[in-house]
Each structure stands twice: as C-alpha cells, then as structure tokens.
C-alpha cells in the first residue's frame, strides 16, 4: 500500500501513457485524450444536472423542457426537503446513526476475530473461518424473509439497531478477510519484543497490533459506511414507520407523490444531492483506502 498513487492503484516506473505507450505519440495522443475528456464529461453530466436542478427555483426545476443552464438560483428545494414529512434532520440522523452502528459492529466483531485467525492456534480454525464467511455463498436478499421473521419476534423491525445488524452481516465476510490478512502481515518480531516486556495478548492487540492495522480499520469502516448509507432493500423491508426511514427510503417514497399529485423534481434532486455528498466526500478524502480495499477484497 505504501507505493500506492492517490487512488490506491500501484504506481510503478513506467513510460508516460502506460499501456498505450506506442500510441501515445503524435495525433493518436490527442484522439485518446479527447476520448477521455468526453468520457469524463459523460460521467459528470448527470451529477451536474442533479446539482443544478437542486438549486433552481422549484418552478424552473419542474419546467418543461428543462433548462441546461440554471436561470434562477434558490435554496427553496432544500428548504422544502428540510421540512418534508418528518424533516430532513430526522432522516439524516437515521441514516448516520445506522451507518455509525454498522461501522461499530463491523469493527468490534472483525478486529478481534481477524487477530485470532491470524495469530492463535485455535482448533478447527479453517472450518471456523469458512463458517464466518457463510454470507458469501448466500445473498442477503434471499435471507431477508427469515431475518424479517426473526426481527418481528425480537422487536427489531422499525429499529435502526436491527437495520445496522443487517448491514453488518452484509459487510462481515469482506471485513473479516481484510482484517485477518492485515494482522498476518504484521512482523512477529514486534510482538515478541512486547512479550519480553511482559504484555499479555490483550495488551499486544491493543498496543502493538491495532496501531499497525489502522489503515485496514479505516478501509473496513469506509466500506461499512458506504454500504449502510446506500443500502435500500433491507431498509425497505425492515422499516415501515415513516419516522424511522433512512434517506434513500424517504426519497424513493417522495418520487411519486407531492400535494399536486406529481413529482417535485427540484426537491427530489436536492435529496439526491444530499445523499450523494457524504459518499463522494469520504471517497475523495479516503480514495487510497477505498481502492486498495477493493483490490485486495475482490480480487485476491
């Protein structure tokens, strides 16, 4: 990870232009450059469209045909969103609280488990590891029906804790895998020195091992946040009281009806913008962790 570029992919000494080295000369250079710029524009246009629509006057945002460049500027759509049903603060709280709990559960479960798998001679370790990865072979979408039944009995439906548990179950195999590998990568000498100083294993974990795996903890926390913040089906199944809705749920519910019977496009795009910003923000800030997690989690 040390040699990673800003987005976490490996930097290696190579000719400028990399793969297309031979093409990277003369006129083809401009052609390839132009293709990349068009591609980047195409990817950014929808985000541009939603962000500008969210700051148009609602009448312009609902206008037919839509205007390419905003003629008005207004935060009215955001004000409407702020007061929509139980209010944006409530939905933001629900989404953030669920994500926070999912991060907490994921880290609290997989850090000690990864440590144990990497270091301790636990009997039947390989079988236990496979058991812990059960979720990999069964899609959580298929498990929602029985989980709903269980949560109905445990009174965990309409509960953010319940939803966070589902998000944790989704993230657990990936996170455990990442944590086990990074504990294994710590040089044993570090711990040996500490043992001589009289540390027990819990002190080893807290003082020596955890500080060495902080990047991995950031990675699993980041993935848990993005999964939880964006997750839709589990929330749709588990939450049916409006005041418990997470942001994606309330936005999906708002798409079909407003008081006039149509969609309030300005407010909807304000909502989309609000739900995009935290993800894009943490991604741009922690890009390195995100991409390295993806590369090690998905491919190896």
């Amino acid at each position, binding site marked *: 990870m040390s040699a990673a570029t800003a*987005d976490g992919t490996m930097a290696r000494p190579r000719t400028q232009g990399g*793969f297309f080295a031979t093409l990277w000369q003369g006129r083809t250079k401009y052609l390839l450059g132009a293709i990349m710029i068009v591609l980047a524009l195409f990817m950014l246009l929808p985000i541009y469209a939603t962000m500008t629509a969210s700051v148009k006057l609602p009448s312009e945002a609902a206008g037919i045909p839509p205007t390419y460049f905003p003629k008005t500027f207004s935060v009215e759509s955001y004000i409407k969103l702020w007061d929509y049903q139980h209010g944006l603060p409530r939905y933001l709280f629900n989404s953030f609280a669920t994500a926070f709990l999912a991060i907490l559960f994921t880290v609290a479960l997989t850090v000690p*488990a990864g440590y*144990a798998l990497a270091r301790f001679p*636990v009997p039947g370790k390989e079988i236990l590891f496979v058991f812990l990865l059960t979720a990999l*072979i069964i899609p959580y979408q*298929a498990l929602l029906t029985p989980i709903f039944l269980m949560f109905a009995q445990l009174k965990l439906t309409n509960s953010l804790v319940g939803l966070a548990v589902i998000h944790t179950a989704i993230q657990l195999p990936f996170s455990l895998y990442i944590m086990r590998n990074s504990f294994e990568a710590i040089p044993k000498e570090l711990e040996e020195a500490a043992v001589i100083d009289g540390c027990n294993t819990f002190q*080893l974990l807290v003082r020596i091992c955890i500080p060495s795996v902080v990047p991995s903890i950031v990675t699993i926390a980041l993935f848990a946040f993005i999964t939880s913040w964006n997750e*839709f089906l589990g929330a749709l199944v588990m939450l049916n009281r409006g005041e418990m809705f997470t942001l994606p749920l309330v936005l999906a519910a708002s798409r079909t009806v407003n008081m006039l019977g149509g969609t309030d496009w300005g407010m909807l795009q304000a909502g989309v913008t609000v739900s995009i910003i935290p993800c894009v923000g943490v991604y741009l800030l922690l890009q390195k962790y995100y991409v390295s997690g993806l*590369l090690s989690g998905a491919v190896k």
Partner: protein
Amino acid sequence: MYSSPNSKWLGLLYLTPALLFVAVFTVYPLTQMVWVSFNNWTLISPPKWVGLNNFTKAFSDRQFWISLTFTLKYTLLITPILMIGGYAIALLVSGNSLLQRFTRTVVFLPVVIGLGASSLLWYWLFAPDAGFINTILRDLGIIPDRILWLGVNADISNWAIIISVVWKVIGFGMILFVGAIQAIPTEVNEAALVDGASGWQRVRAITLPLTLRTILLVTLISVIGSLLAFDQFYIMTAGQPQNLTATSVFFIYLNSFPYLKLGYGAALSLILAVFVLLFTLVQMLLTRRSHA
C-alpha cells in the same frame, strides 16, 4: 507467545463474538429459510406444513418465470457492456498521466453513490417531459417525439435501466482491470514492443491472457449482482408494466412483504439462492482453472 496451552481458548474467545453473530444473523436465518419454505405462513396465523407445495407452486407460477427470464435477459444484456466497456476504459486509463488519473477517478465516482440515489437521478433524467434525455435527443434531432422510457414498454424500460446502471457501476470493473493491467511486469510489454507488436497484438497476446483471472472474477461479481438486481427496478419502474419488469428479487419482495406470503417468499428465496450458488461455483471452478 501464542503457543501457551491457554492460547487456544484465548483465540476462541476473541472469535466468539463474530461466531455468535454469524450463527444468529446468517446461519440461523438460512436454516429458517429452508424450514419456512415448507410451510404456509402469514405471520398472523401459525405456520402450516405444506411440504413441497411452495416449490411446485413456484414452477407453475407464470410470474415466477416472467421474473426469472426478465432477470436473465437483463443480466445477459448488461454483463457484456460492463465487461467490454470496463476493460476498454481500463486500457485507456491504465497509465498514470494526469488526465488518465483524473478520468479514472471520475469514472469510478458513481460506484460509491448509492444505487437508490442514482436510480432516482436517472428516473428524473428519463422523465418524459421534465427529463434531460428526451430533451437532448429532441434538440439533437435524433427523435421527433418524446419516448416514454420507463414503465410503459418492458424492453425500453430495461434499456433505460441498463444505461443508468452502466453509468453507476462501470467504474467498478474498470478499477479492478486497471489494477490487474498495472500488475503486468513492464518488461513483458517492453519485450513485445521490441519485437514490434502493435497495440492490438499486445492486448490479445499479453494483456488479456495475463488479466484473465480478474476478468473472470469481475464477471462473476457482475453477473451475481445483476441476478440480484432490485433497487433500480423498484425505483425506476416499480415493476411496471404489469410486473413485466419485476426482477426475481422484486418478485420475492412482493410475495414476502406486501403480500406476507412468507412461506412462498422463503421458497422463492431458496430457489434464487441455489441458482446464484450454481453460478458462483461454476465461475469459481473456471477461475481456479485459469489461475493454475
């Protein structure tokens, strides 16, 4: 230090929270799913044992087949676009020039956005009058009149959703392909260059074979993701017209939750899980062989 007689049990102690969690929230529901699938249960009345009824019912249920074929069609259409498109972009941006790194970041950006948010965004872009797609196509003179993209015609809806999902996830494959392409030792490419191989020859002889494992893995992840598609269809078409765009997961959702046919929903979930597992196993085998 980890070899004292106690450390076996100490290790188990550190594992216990995760083991309990998986037992309670993954393995137990899995067994419940199997059990419930042999019952009729609506939550209000107690479960009633019906044997294989739910399964035979599924196979003779017209909507089950409509959902399954629609999901397969969606998967078959979107997977080649994501793989070939993602790979082409990866070849284009695998270097480390400023423009390439910028394009990489931008193409990857929608991956971190929620599928719910991106579906709502495209639901608006595809809106008949207030949306940009029809406006742009009309302003460019490509279409004379507006197209009703979503919820009227199943095929047109499918394509509209495919466009939105390609935008949202193409960066996922791209970033993994870039990782694999960059892992190819520079010397291999240089040797081929010395031998006078053209760009396309190098793609075929070096890049594709050396990144085959990643290609298969990304295909696996992508196919399974498509077979489990839900959010985009729920938000953009709500299954319309006439549940023709209701995917398999959508069909399970409808039965389990609004209709509360939990036994039937569990049976459908089990069928889907086995179906997806087959794909996982077949592709794992393929992946292993290519790796050896």
